[in-house]
């Protein structure tokens, strides 16, 4: 099972809303979170090597999430699940919802992107592993599955270098940038995707509350970098360093 998120496209120039309540998302190009693309690609690779039966893509949010799921299906996922939710979901809620879906679907492996590029939380994967009591391999840069022994060997990118873990399945893996390069959605697959099923769930059906413990107070842009000044002589430089910057 792969969880994917619909976010503002990575290449778009972000603007903050005038009322500082958030980022401008109207009329802005949205696409699948890059790390989620990598997660889906990894799942497809695992299925193509014969170690998995099917790949299910999951997304949560308003009805336009279906676009992202269609992309996932066009890349090669077999089925999709859409959890209808009208408000922005925090990672803990997503993790609780995923737990319910895992109980229904019983996947052998749960793969997510390490973080979403809109909130940079990097929490969902770790939380769901905690809720399920499953082992977790986060920031994966290499994944090798052994079906017989039911373990996954994961290379993790950590600050000090690479760490290799061996996880018993079922497990949660979150993907990092260097794991793979996601495939393009080819036309034949886009055609097939139109007939693949997308199952809908509502929050009531899954019996999860979206009571958020977090409140966004304000969103502001980082301070603009001041332009540099071109000086015309060394004397002027010394003068500025002495009197303005106070470093000599």
């Amino acid at each position, binding site marked *: 099972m792969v969880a994917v998120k619909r976010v503002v*496209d990575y290449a778009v120039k972000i603007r903050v809303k005038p009322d500082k309540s958030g980022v401008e998302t109207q009329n*802005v*190009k949205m696409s699948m979170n*890059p790390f989620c693309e990598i997660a889906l690609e990894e799942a497809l690779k695992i299925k193509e090597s014969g170690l998995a039966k099917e790949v299910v893509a999951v997304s949560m949010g308003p009805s336009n999430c279906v676009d992202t799921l269609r992309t996932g299906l066009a890349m090669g996922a077999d089925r999709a699940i859409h959890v209808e939710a009208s408000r922005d979901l925090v990672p803990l809620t997503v993790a609780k919802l995923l737990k319910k879906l895992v109980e229904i679907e019983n996947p052998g492996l749960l793969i997510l992107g390490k973080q979403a590029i809109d909130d940079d939380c990097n929490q969902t994967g770790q939380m769901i592993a905690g809720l399920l009591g499953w082992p977790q391999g986060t920031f994966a840069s290499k994944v090798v599955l052994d079906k017989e022994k039911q373990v996954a060997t994961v290379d993790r990118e950590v600050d000090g270098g690479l760490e290799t873990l061996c996880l018993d399945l079922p497990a949660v893996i979150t993907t990092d940038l260097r794991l793979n390069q996601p495939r*393009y*959605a080819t*036309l*034949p697959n*886009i055609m097939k995707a139109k007939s693949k099923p997308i199952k809908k769930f509502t929050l009531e059906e899954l019996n999860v509350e979206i009571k958020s413990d977090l409140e966004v107070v304000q969103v502001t842009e980082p301070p603009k970098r001041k332009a540099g000044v071109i000086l015309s002589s060394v004397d002027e430089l010394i003068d500025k360093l002495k009197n303005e910057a106070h470093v000599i």
Partner: protein
Amino acid sequence: MEKLRATSSLRRSLKSILNRQLSSVSEIRYLNGKRSCQPTFNLIRDHKNLGEANSIRYRCFSSVSTVVQRNPSFSTLNPDDISYFKQLLGEKSVIQDEDRLETVNTDWMHKYKGSSKLLLQPRTTEEVAQILKYCNSRRLAVVPQGGNTGLVGGSVPVFDEVIVNLGSMNNIISFDKVSGILVCEAGCILENLISFLDNQGFIMPLDLGAKGSCQIGGNVSTNAGGLRLVRYGSLHGNVLGLEAVLANGDVLDMLGTLRKDNTGYDLKHLFIGSEGSLGIVTKVSILTPPKLSSENIAFLACRDYSSCQKLLMEAKRKLGEVLSAFEFLDIQAMDLVLNHLDGVRNPLPATMHNFYVLIETTGSDESYDREKLEAFLLSSMEGGLISDGVIAQDINQASSFWRIREGVPEALMKAGAVYKYDLSLPVEKLYDLVNDMRTRLGDLARVIGYGHLGDGNLHLNVSAAQYDDKILEQIEPYVYEWTSKHRGSISAEHGLGLMKANKIYYSKSPETVKTMGSIKKLLDPNGILNPYKVLPHSLNS
């Protein structure tokens, strides 16, 4: 094939020039990043002591040994001229420094090199007018220069013409948010204009690979085409007005911002595309289209050229108003790009296809455009027009498709020597030329075809390890004769410049060219603006 003798009076020793040219590596901004070019200039020295003058036989790699005579009626610079310019423009705008002159004397492809001794950088139209008035009275030849990204040697001096570079005139004068009319000076770099307009919610009607360096004045003077012509039309339609300075210093203020103005002869069209030979464009007023939110792009593979053609017809009909670009590359071009450029991934790795087509749509409603594109592509696939294809799912994938198409010229430069041709041909016949050239050249060189199929514009390139006259003989004048036979244009968008100055008769009748000569004589009686270029040398008395 003509063989003329080039004569020019040199002030530096020939040996030092030879060494400098063979060892210099210049960095020029192109596409979206820096790239270093190695000079592929093969200079053959023919020392003949004719008293003061030395003769050099230039080998221009686009036409067989054309050798041009320096017009003796032009004066040469003297110290009084220099002091006049310094007094007029200030010390900073008068450049005689050898290193800087080196760069402005050489074109982007390192095929043409002049020997100008003076670079002027005026900051206002008034300064340009004074410069031209003075040069006209002194009979000093002048080369107007912008971003120096031209591909036909039109932006650099042939001999010692004074270079007037408009790069310092880069102010945006005004922008009307309601109508989208932008008024700016000629030295504004295209990419800067695109960023400025992006913030306002508009885009420039033209887009080309050289946008990081090319200036709008140059684009207008050469009537640049680019990638979006199929949607937004040519500059003749988008430029609402311009301000130009004539050879005698008169300033023609035709800087209207009106969409419709039928008062008298529309002279601005003379300056659009005349490559600086009738006047120097100093300000431009241009109509910019609004930026539409939904852009979709597909990279497709076709089995043969007739499928590409049918695909184009279908695209124009079914995608109609949202189609914004239709480009094609053949298998050789794709191969070259994949081998010579870094960070480029084949979107259809399964097999190499004979032809690749890139279709872009721009519209205001994301889901509607998407559905339209998908429906069109699926029906084309079912109809057998497309063998395979991918649709970009996000902006990164879209840029990677454009990188492939925009990277072909760069890949060609890296592959060695390249002979470039830019032809307009009827769409059915377009690729026949490529096949003919392949048969003619056989093993001598690789022939690559790509271009703006939506406009019927073929960029024919012949790539070889080194420049060789044997190859050139097979190409010219066959290519020009072939094009002429099908009533095509020997220069679709690049212009005539120096490279094709004497080739105009392949595409225009003698009477037409004679009339052009009369207009040139009228507007520039002393012929000081960009001499030796655009019109045949035989027209100059």
